[in-house]
């Protein structure tokens, strides 16, 4: 195949596939704890790292990794300890990171907005041999964490309070997810760019869960989708001369739409099957949308035993 003949394209394809594997592998835990936009936030913060790299004439990639890790730890700590104004604090971090990046890169002698754009939107064609070595090492670390600790990370992301009562080191595991996400963002920066990196972490997971019922299957399906779209996007960009990052993200969204359409009859069949499996259950039960605890059609025929109360409100505030 012509595409595999140049070393440049070989490196681009390998980098794309590695990112296709690790982005959904981390993203699934972020989606599970409803932090789908955290990848976006880390991407913004990493901009400052890129700018700093240009200003200090060191490698922008390693500088971005360092700053993204610091930023992700800060975000996790704000999430864990920040009470009511946590979202504002996160917003400050996101925009501050972005603005800092633009400012620093313009202050540096070598940097310009043109350099910035290759980090914002990806530049697969500039992946060097040394970059690829770094990507291999970082990707291996991410896979080790997300697969090796999947049970623990699942428990922590599923129900943090319960995980703490099982004695798991919840804070350490949360920080590990944050750092792993930061590493993934900076690896994926070369492929899809900082502005689109979050899409590759979230969209394959969202697409996979249209047709899955279990976490394990969602994980595998998301990684397969991620790999398929990064590979297809890179090949398409080679033949059609379109930007790879944007192509990859649009392909992923296409997969999401196709699976959503396919999933509708599947969900209906499963609902029928589960209704018939229930048999004598006096309550009519279908799949419910959203959190199961929300009041909805599943409300049982017993009187509501809880209502909105000061205690519940106070507890929610504390939980946030």
């Amino acid at each position, binding site marked *: 195949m012509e595409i595999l003949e140049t070393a440049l394209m070989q490196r681009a394809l390998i980098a794309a596939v590695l990112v296709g594997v690790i982005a959904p592998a981390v993203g699934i835990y972020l989606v599970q704890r409803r932090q789908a936009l955290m990848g976006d936030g880390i991407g913004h913060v990493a901009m400052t790292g890129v700018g700093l790299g240009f200003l200090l004439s060191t490698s922008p990639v390693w500088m971005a990794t360092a700053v993204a890790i610091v930023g992700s730890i800060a975000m996790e700590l704000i999430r864990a300890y920040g009470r009511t104004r946590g979202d504002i604090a996160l917003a400050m971090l996101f925009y501050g990171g972005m603005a800092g990046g633009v400012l620093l890169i313009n202050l540096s002698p070598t940097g310009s907005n043109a350099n910035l754009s290759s980090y914002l939107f990806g530049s697969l064609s500039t992946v060097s041999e040394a970059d690829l070595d770094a990507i291999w090492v970082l990707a291996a670390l991410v896979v080790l964490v997300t697969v090796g600790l999947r049970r623990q990370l699942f428990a922590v992301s599923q129900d943090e309070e319960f995980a703490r009562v099982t*004695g798991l080191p919840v804070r350490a595991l949360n920080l590990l997810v944050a750092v792993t996400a930061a590493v993934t963002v900076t690896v994926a920066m070369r492929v899809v760019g900082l502005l689109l990196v979050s899409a590759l972490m979230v969209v394959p997971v969202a697409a996979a869960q249209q047709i899955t019922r279990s976490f394990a299957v969602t994980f595998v399906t998301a990684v397969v989708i991620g790999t398929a779209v990064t590979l297809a996007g890179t090949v398409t960009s080679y033949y059609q001369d379109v930007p790879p990052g944007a192509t990859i993200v649009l392909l992923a969204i296409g997969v999401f739409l196709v699976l959503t359409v396919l999933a509708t009859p599947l969900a209906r069949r499963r609902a029928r099957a589960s209704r018939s499996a229930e048999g004598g259950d006096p309550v009519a039960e279908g799949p419910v949308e959203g959190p199961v605890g929300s009041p909805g059609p599943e409300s049982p025929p017993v009187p509501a035993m809880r209502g909105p109360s000061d205690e519940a409100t106070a507890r929610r505030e*504390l939980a946030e």
Partner: protein
Amino acid sequence: MATTHTGRAESAGREADDVPRTAPDTGSTPPPAPTVLSLRGATATLGSRPVLRGIDLSLRRGEVVALLGANGSGKSTAVRSVIGQVPLTGGEVTLFGTPLRRFRDWSRVGYVPQRTTAASGVPATVREVVASGRLSRTGLLRWPTRADRAAVQRVIELVGLADRAKDAVGALSGGQHQRVLIARALAAEPELLIMDEPMAGVDLASQEILAATLREQVTAGTTVLLVLHELGPLEPLIDRAVVLREGRVMHDGPPPKAVGQHAPAGDEPGHPASQGHLANQGCHPHAAGEPLRTGLLT
């Protein structure tokens, strides 16, 4: 009024504490069971509002204790402080004789949170959620063994969800969902089970299964602390009821009988009738009595 209640509750607490020192002298009675959980003078605030104003509570092994009270009385905060989710501003918690700060043996404790949390952003099956309860035994690095998988299967069968083990928890009814959370807590085979409103919003069929599951655990010797809004179908299981009001213990003794009968009238949260009702429980004639086992399990 309030001071009398507190005084009464404290005297009840002291009597319970005196039991182990006097009991061994009489040869006929068995030695008292060790204390599994104790809260002493616990105070806590949420925001700036004091929620617990000095709570004493202790559970001996095998006891089934219901924590009752109106919304806002501090019962959920009390159990959440026991598992370290709400920091105490004063007093202390011990689990199995170890101060909470140094307690590490979490596989001995099973916790069922208020039903809100098990549906997350990614689908997960009943088995996956229940298996996460086993992590207190497998820990951070040990791989799950055949015994771990068997334990998970056993508790799924125990709550009657074997045929739904591969279904997503998001597709379950409220009652089935609650059964998943209880199975998750039981997966580690705990000695102490702490449940926060296990019957809230649960259909009748599931209530019966839950009561049967709990009965089985209690028969096997598990200690249980339940937060309840009303005794309901669990009433025969309960040895002792502790009624909280405004962060203080109003009653510590046999479950007040009237609650079960009049419960529907007082169900509306914040209803004046329910407030008055709980105040009456504080003045219950048995309030100062020793904890009694109702012995309805066998």
